[in-house]
């Protein structure tokens, strides 16, 4: 926090309230007078955008739950009922469904921003880990939400993901039976997924509060990655960043609305408009786009258990990132080598997503015959995802090594210093 509070209650009532529950003071110190580095760029607006996304998902979700029936025989029809009969139901559902994609789009940008500017480094490790926990909760919530319409993709998505647990030695089978509440994904599974899908967003909201609390102890990182040295380095959160965040949210909502109103099913899969049938698997199973890179890593490994461990490990590494990257320089603006590997890392994550959306045996270059290496053709997405998965892991090792090898560029002594110097020259 900024030290002592600047809030002064003006009326009799606010003085009375402040002595009993200083909630207005808390809001004032957190979102009005909070000293914020004055050089935050638009990459920093995604925190606010994410809060907006969470709010939209909770509000639309609560409303949808008033019409949805979590029963294997009725779920699919109740979603169609929402789409066709409920007043504005189509719009509310499309906002909720596309909202999940927008939420993940924003969180990925937010996370890449954190990595690029070293926002996980001391003293913000807990802040970063809380963010990783939010991300895990988001993935669990999104997965269970996708199961609820009980279409073919819902059903077999649930089958494949719950079967991942079956890869665990000894306890695997009992855990999957426990998760299912039966001997296959069925009505009990749908019921509990609905219950948890309703619960988890509120747990996310709770962790978000901790995330903001942990943010407000050291204050924001900033694009230069140097700590705030004096009052001259900061501006009050309101109106400077309320307005900047507000503008970014408006732009983001334009993208959001263009999906909802002009291509509501572009990010979904047509097979999910076919009711779940446990006896027939659709020809091509894919998860939602935001899981594709992890799905590609899972399939890249020929051994089932190792594949599952590699997939979870790819997320687990994020948690220990503050202790992998030991470089004293936060911002990659001043770390040209790290920046290069980071940019490759982004491309690799996107390409992994591409691999996840293809059949493993699909050819990358249609006209090239390629040749077999071990179990698959070298000109197939299987091998491409293997190379990419290796880089995904290697990136963390590279960051670790660069902590010692890399010679960073000179870092400015404060946020204001370079600007003042440039001013004097001019």
């Amino acid at each position, binding site marked *: 926090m900024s030290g002592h509070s600047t809030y002064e209650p003006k009326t009799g009532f606010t003085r009375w309230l402040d002595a009993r529950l200083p909630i207005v003071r808390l809001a004032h110190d957190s979102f009005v007078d909070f000293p914020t580095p004055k050089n935050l760029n638009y990459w920093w607006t995604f925190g606010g955008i994410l809060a907006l996304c969470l709010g939209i998902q909770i509000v639309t979700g609560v409303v949808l739950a008033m019409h949805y029936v979590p029963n294997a025989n009725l779920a699919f029809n109740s979603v169609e009922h929402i789409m066709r009969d409920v007043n504005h139901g189509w719009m509310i559902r499309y906002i909720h469904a596309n909202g999940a994609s927008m939420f993940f789009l924003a969180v990925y940008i937010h996370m890449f921003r954190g990595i690029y500017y070293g926002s996980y480094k001391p003293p913000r490790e807990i802040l970063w880990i809380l963010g990783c926990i939010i991300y895990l909760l988001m993935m669990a919530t999104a997965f269970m939400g996708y199961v609820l319409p009980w279409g073919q993709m819902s059903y077999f998505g649930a089958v494949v993901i719950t079967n991942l647990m079956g890869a665990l030695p000894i306890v695997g089978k009992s855990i999957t039976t426990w998760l299912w509440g039966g001997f296959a994904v*069925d009505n009990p599974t749908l019921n*509990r997924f609905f219950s948890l899908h309703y619960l988890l967003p509120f747990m996310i909201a709770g962790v978000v509060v901790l995330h903001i609390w942990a943010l407000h102890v050291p204050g924001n990182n900033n694009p230069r990655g140097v700590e705030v040295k004096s009052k001259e380095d900061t501006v009050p959160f309101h109106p400077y960043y309320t307005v900047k965040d507000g503008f970014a949210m408006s732009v983001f909502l334009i993208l959001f609305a263009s999906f909802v109103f002009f291509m509501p099913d572009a990010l979904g899969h047509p097979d999910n408009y076919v009711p779940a049938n446990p006896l027939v*698997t659709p020809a091509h199973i894919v998860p939602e786009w935001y899981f594709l890179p992890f799905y590609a890593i899972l399939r890249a490994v020929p051994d089932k258990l190792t594949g599952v461990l590699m997939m979870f490990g790819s997320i687990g590494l994020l948690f220990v990132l503050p202790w992998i990257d030991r470089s004293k320089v936060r911002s990659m603006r001043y770390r040209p080598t790290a920046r290069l590997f980071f940019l490759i890392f982004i491309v690799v994550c996107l390409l992994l997503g591409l691999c996840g959306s293809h059949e493993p045996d699909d050819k990358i270059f249609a006209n090239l015959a390629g040749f077999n290496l071990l179990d698959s053709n070298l000109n197939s997405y299987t091998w491409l995802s293997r190379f990419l998965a290796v880089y995904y892991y290697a990136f963390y090792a590279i960051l670790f090594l660069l902590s010692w090898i890399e010679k960073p560029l000179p870092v400015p002594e404060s946020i204001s210093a370079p600007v003042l110097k440039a001013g004097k020259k001019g």
Partner: protein
Amino acid sequence: MANTVVETSPPAGHGDDPNRRDFIHIVAATAAVGGVVAFAWPLIDEMNPSADVLALSSIEFDLSKVTVGQQVVVKWQGKPVFVRHRTPKEIAEAVHDDHAPMKDPATDASRHKPGKPEWLIVIGVCTHLGCVPNFGLGDYGGWLCPCHGSVYDTAGRIRKGPAPLNLFLPDYTFLSDTKIKVG
């Protein structure tokens, strides 16, 4: 009488005896932890299959409906069960491959009931990640899983792809020549 004095040991300050205090702390903490665990267990076990789910554990099926070369999929415990009436050629291929290199070696004879090689009854769930394999596809004429390309032969044995095990065999018995009970 005054020359006899009865002396009892002075009562130790109850609250000051460190051993007693520790004992009370330990007992109280143990009881609290035990209580939480005892309460947590029903909340965890509640997610296991309920009595009505367990009660649906067996079905009967009339085999006369399945002609030679055909497969009928029956739902048992929420899972597909493949009832396949194998042709003599399919049986011969499966027996011929008994000693071919396999991930999960098994003879054809171990995959069906004695004297009933024409009836192959397996759980239609890929042992990789649980998709339902497609009938008659793949290099071995058995099944091909659409999800990650596991290939099974005409005895339901895994021959290619990521699946680690052969298709599972359900518990079943022949009630008569044309009727089976699964489960």
